[in-house]
């Protein structure tokens, strides 16, 4: 040690290494904490509408906290409507969602297998019937695209040959969901959203004018809509004329009948 330029008392090499080690540790701790906080920030600033969550999901923030990100709901869904989000969704990483346009929740399981599978109550056990579900509400968002509003019928495969989605066609098989691409429709006035809705009376076609000769009808969503997304999946217009609107709050299931 013949370095004479330094004025300060020199640290021994061991002390220097210890100091470096401490600084390294602080840096690594900071980076790891920031990485986790980035996931939180992502959620806070995300402007996009919240995802459609499986039946029984708590309000968005509570749902993200209560979900243990295990995917057991994914496993039980007979139509595999439920998928898990990935890292880009921040604190939503590993949380289940439904992309209704690709595959809606059609209650093929006779309601809420996913709720029964959930080990943490993130999907609320307060519901056990499909009518009690409140995941979202259908809304006619592209009214101009709606065939019924143009008075037009529909002939063919609802979503084309290549569409992979499945649906419970009770008239074919009550227990085995069938490929949507396997059914050819031929209707004089398009009513696919009403026809395939799994909730009785949740949607109806109503006249757009007082003229009885006017063939045009418009889909009207009723209060009993649960937001399952079957109408969004089946809508032959592109993009779907009717879509599910999700709210981050106020969707939590209430205790039924008490």
């Amino acid at each position, binding site marked *: 040690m013949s370095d004479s330029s330094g004025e300060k008392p020199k640290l021994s090499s061991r002390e220097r290494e210890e100091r470096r080690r401490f600084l390294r540790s602080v840096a*690594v*701790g900071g980076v790891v904490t920031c990485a986790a906080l980035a996931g939180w920030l992502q959620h806070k600033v995300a402007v996009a509408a919240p995802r459609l969550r499986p039946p029984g999901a708590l309000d968005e923030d509570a749902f993200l906290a*209560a979900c*243990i990100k*295990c995917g*057991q709901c994914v496993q039980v869904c007979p139509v595999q409507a439920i998928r898990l989000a990935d890292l880009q969704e921040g604190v939503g*990483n*590993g949380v289940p969602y439904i992309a209704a346009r690709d595959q809606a929740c059609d209650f093929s399981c006779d309601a809420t297998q996913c709720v029964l599978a959930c080990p943490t109550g993130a999907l609320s056990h307060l519901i056990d019937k499909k009518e009690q579900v409140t995941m979202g509400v259908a809304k006619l968002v592209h009214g101009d695209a709606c065939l019924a509003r143009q008075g037009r019928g529909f002939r063919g495969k609802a979503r084309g040959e290549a569409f992979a989605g499945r649906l419970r066609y009770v008239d074919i098989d009550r227990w085995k969901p069938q490929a949507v691409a396997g059914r050819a429709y031929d209707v004089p006035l398009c009513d696919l959203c009403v026809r395939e809705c799994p909730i009785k009376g949740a949607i109806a076609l109503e006249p757009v004018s007082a003229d009885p000769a006017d063939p045009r009808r418009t889909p009207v969503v009723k209060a009993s809509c649960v937001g399952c997304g079957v109408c969004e999946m089946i809508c032959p217009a592109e993009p779907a004329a009717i879509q599910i609107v999700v709210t981050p709050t106020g969707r939590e299931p209430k205790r039924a009948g008490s």
Partner: protein
Amino acid sequence: MSKGLLQLTREGLALLFGRTPEKPPAEAVTPEAAALLAFKKTPAERKRRKEAIAAERAEDVMSWKWRSRRWASIILLNGLFVLSFWLDLQLVEGSLTASRVLGFHMADLNSSLQLMLAHKHVVLNLVIGVTTVFLIYVIVGGRSFCSWVCPYHLLSEIAELLHLKLAEKRLVKDHELDRRLRVVLFGVFAVLAFATGFTLFETISPVGILSRALTYGTLVGLIWVALLLAVEVLWSRRFWCRYVCPVGLTYGFVGAVAPVRILYDSEKCMHEGKCRQVCLVPHVLDLTKMSYATELREPIGPDCTRCALCLDACPTGALSFDVVGITRRPPPAFAPGGPGAAGLETSAHGKADAA
């Protein structure tokens, strides 16, 4: 006096929480251990040990017995998750954060803790899952999860082999961190979960990310895992498991006095130090240094993952699996009333003859 359960727990937890092991004071060493140490320091014994080590170094083969068993365990358990989903076997459903094993609930302890702190509400199924997992790891030793189940551990071990290769060629250097970092981060993530109401650690936990990626194909998270592995290869050996992961700390704490453990037999030890070189948590093996042991036989502390790489590395069998109350062993030669140095001499010679 041999150490009581309370003292073992206290010392083990102190090590787990980041204390640096120190040479024990003379009064902490039992008379038997002191007698063994005195014998080991005799010139004849030093010479014998030096020769034995030289002979052993000349061969220098490391067994893959336990490592291959462990890798098989990790691949099998994670494979069951994948196959249960893809073939609808329904054996092990879910992922490592929470699952149903043949219908029984299991829940990861750290994930559940994060969830409870964030959500501030607990349902019965989760309590059942947590209790089941808790009891398992109280028995088999908490951090067994790390080395026998965690998929990140397997990748990290491969990254470590790469790191050591590169370090040997002096292309990379291991940068040690302070082990107390893990305790700090455990606290940080607990406070963050409670304060923000989100399970922030879960977002970046490679355990959950990998487990879900395998079963459900969520691949974006693998970028983060790859980043962590790159840091381990290029900069700091096993840094995630050693200094960061609160999951490991949680399990270590739970298995503080587990009956399934690694037992160190000081009589067989040549103090060559191979075990410490391969160990993920070498501080737990500091008692294998000359004059660090206080008893003839001592269990390895709670930070030990039971990975048994030390068993693979140890040429003399001084480290072995032990189940309290089940594993039977002959009494130590240096035990009061035992044959002492003479007994050890004959057994050592016997071994040399056999070899």
